[in-house]
């Protein structure tokens, strides 16, 4: 079972890597703003699988914290575009 979980983790990491390359290349800023969301779903899936396979302690709380912060980061990126446009991002 741990081997299977680790293989799944490697696979998902691979898809995240390809997705990131595509996203960061993407012609508009709106594309790039999706990077944190990609990490939020793919990266955290990898984390959960690896944690379950290697039995690292206390990782579920870290995963919750990470999911929260990835959510925060993705909305921060996107709202800086959405409220003021890609050329004049208005950070708070």
């Amino acid at each position: 079972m741990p081997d299977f979980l680790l293989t799944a983790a490697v696979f998902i990491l691979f898809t995240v890597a390809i997705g990131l390359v595509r996203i960061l290349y993407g012609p508009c800023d709106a594309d790039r703003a999706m990077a944190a969301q990609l990490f939020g779903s793919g990266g955290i899936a990898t984390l959960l699988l690896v944690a379950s396979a290697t039995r690292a302690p206390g990782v579920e709380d870290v995963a919750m914290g990470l999911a929260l912060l990835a959510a925060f980061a993705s909305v921060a990126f996107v709202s800086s575009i959405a409220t003021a446009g890609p050329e004049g991002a208005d950070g708070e």
Partner: protein
Amino acid sequence: MSFALNLLSVTAISAGLIFFLAGTLGLLRFPDTLSRLHALTKADNVGLGLVVIGLLPLADNMLAGLKLVVVWVLVQLSGATVGQLIAQSIRRFGQTG
């Protein structure tokens, strides 16, 4: 019993992998930011959900399983919001670089 649970885990996680693959293919092949957004926020999200379902039988206790579900809920919430906001920005400002 444990064999059945392991089988459930393997099936759910494998299905999740298929959805992740589909999501990434969508990211690569769709022609337009809005459709790429769909691929990311929906397919990858379902992939994470299936992975979470697959990991639930392996969790140590109920609280750990609850935390896994909370992670999924958080990612869903951010996916929904990100989708709406990016679409608003594209509608308002067009797809500039």
